[in-house]
């Protein structure tokens, strides 16, 4: 278990990490996320002491990291960075074996480990082991970067925006590979990114930071459903308004604004309006805006006379829902009945919107793919 206790850091009198606290369980995939300058990389690099802590303590399995020999500490924490940082003067095999060699593994053991690791990422030993980093593509290099980090079987891996410089397809593949490795080897991973998609895909727990503070620690699901504040929901952007299919109200499904007419209109006027708008029914309200019913082209044609007021033609049995009714009600009405739309009313019966099949589809799609 990793524990940050009251960690504080400042640069030239400016505080960049403000007394943060959090715990990470063994085998947990934790993503540190936030806008640039939020302190996420600083927080990460404190763990392997690349950055000095000003005050507070970090414990790994209840041992203060300041009391562990610094080189030993680092050899037991894997490290992957965005710039990859493979040693250009060493072959792929030598690169992977850097830490095992520092830990004085013998030659055979190193060699076996390289075989094992390369086969894990489907890069045949014969083809790649003797190559130099320069001869590999960016994606392959970072794969080796990851292998180098896990070569000596450290329980903890730190990753600082490791896939930030890769193209989207390669990034996607490497994310999957890393997640697989993490699960298979039960690694504790601390991963820094500013990409919410990446965080959601990989994290067990997301730690959201801003200006040196932790704003929220939550699972991806929870953070999406209930972001702790504006900064987080804004950062999550499109997903900020994520709707939850279960809890959707009718007001989430409706289309606004809605066109209504007053009940003192005459039949010909109504036909004119319908013609212009290419619709076959109109929602009627009284002077105070209270819902009266619907007048359809059929009722005007069969019962109406020219110049007559529409009061008598209004049909009352049109499906309506209240705006805070469960969305499912509107869905059922639309699917079961022959009506083209359902009218959404407030508690005092004024019209706020209508739900059509297309507004419904749009709202449901936003649940699946985010706000459209």
């Amino acid at each position, binding site marked *: 278990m990793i524990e940050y206790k009251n960690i504080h850091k400042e640069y030239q009198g400016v505080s960049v990490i403000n007394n943060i606290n959090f715990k990470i369980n063994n085998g947990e995939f934790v993503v540190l996320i936030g806008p640039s300058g939020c302190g996420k990389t600083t927080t990460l690099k404190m763990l392997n002491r690349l950055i000095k802590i000003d005050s507070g303590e970090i414990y790994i399995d209840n041992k203060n990291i300041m009391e562990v020999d610094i*080189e030993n500490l680092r*050899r037991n924490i894997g490290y992957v960075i965005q710039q990859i940082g493979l*040693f*250009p003067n060493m072959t792929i095999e030598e690169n992977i074996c850097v*830490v095992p060699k520092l830990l004085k593994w013998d030659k055979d053991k190193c060699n076996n480990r390289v075989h094992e690791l390369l086969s894990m990422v489907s890069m045949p030993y014969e083809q790649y082991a003797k190559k130099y980093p320069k001869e590999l593509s960016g994606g392959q290099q970072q794969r080796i970067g990851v292998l180098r980090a896990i070569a000596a079987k450290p329980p903890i891996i730190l990753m600082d925006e490791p896939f930030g410089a890769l193209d989207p397809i390669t990034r996607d593949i490497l994310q999957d590979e890393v997640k697989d490795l993490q699960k298979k080897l039960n690694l504790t991973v601390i991963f820094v990114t500013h990409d919410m998609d990446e965080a959601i895909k990989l994290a067990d727990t997301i730690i959201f930071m801003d200006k040196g503070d932790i704003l929220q620690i939550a699972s991806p699901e929870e953070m999406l459903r209930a972001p702790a504040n504006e900064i987080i929901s804004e950062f999550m952007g499109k997903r900020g308004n994520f709707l939850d299919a279960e809890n959707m109200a009718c007001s989430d499904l409706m289309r606004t604004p809605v066109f209504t007419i007053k009940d003192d209109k005459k039949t010909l006027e109504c036909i004119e309006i319908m013609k212009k708008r290419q619709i076959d029914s109109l929602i009627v309200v009284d002077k105070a805006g209270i819902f009266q019913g619907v007048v359809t082209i059929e009722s005007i044609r069969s019962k109406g006379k020219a110049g007559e007021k529409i009061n008598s033609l209004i049909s009352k049995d049109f499906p309506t829902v209240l705006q805070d009714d469960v969305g499912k009600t509107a869905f059922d009405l639309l699917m079961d009945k022959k009506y083209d739309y359902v009218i959404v009313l407030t508690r005092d019966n004024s019209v706020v919107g209508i739900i059509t099949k297309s507004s419904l589809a749009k709202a449901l799609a936003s649940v699946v793919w985010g706000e459209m």
Partner: protein
Amino acid sequence: MSWTLIFQHLYLVIMATIGTIVIGLPLGVLAYLNKSFNRLILWSVDILQTLPALALLGVIMVFIGGNSLTVIIGLILYSLLPIVRNTYVGLTNIDPAIKEAATAMGMGKFYKLIHVELPLAFPVVFTGIRIAVVTSIGVAVFGTFVGGGGLGSVIYRGIHIQNMNLIMSGTLSLMAMAIIFDFSMAWIEKKLYQK
């Protein structure tokens, strides 16, 4: 002019170069590792090179007499600059991400220097060595004034007895030597940078 003189000249240059590497490389590393020595070292080697070569040799001769050692010491002091500076620059300019990776892997300062930094800085260091060698070939001509021998004596005698052939043969041999070293070392250098 004889082959002996050419070998004598080469001997001075090669011994001086070895000496410069032995002294200059650690000085460059020290300047890189220790910020407080950094200025002093770089400044000193800068100053050394501004001294007129002949004057430098004269001063050394006062202390240890006139012989080939005088010339070698003079050449060493004179060509420290390119090697010290290139070692320092080569080490400083390594991609910081690579240095950070090395540190984060748990390499100690010295281990990192030997296994990562010096190998990566080597092409730049080699450029420094090449400059030092080519400079030494020219400067070693002054060796003759302090009894160090070498091709300088041919040219000096040529000037003295106003014999153009003698002057030309000495000069051309020097030029040929400089060009051969420069070209062959530049070729190696190119290979190093490609790696």
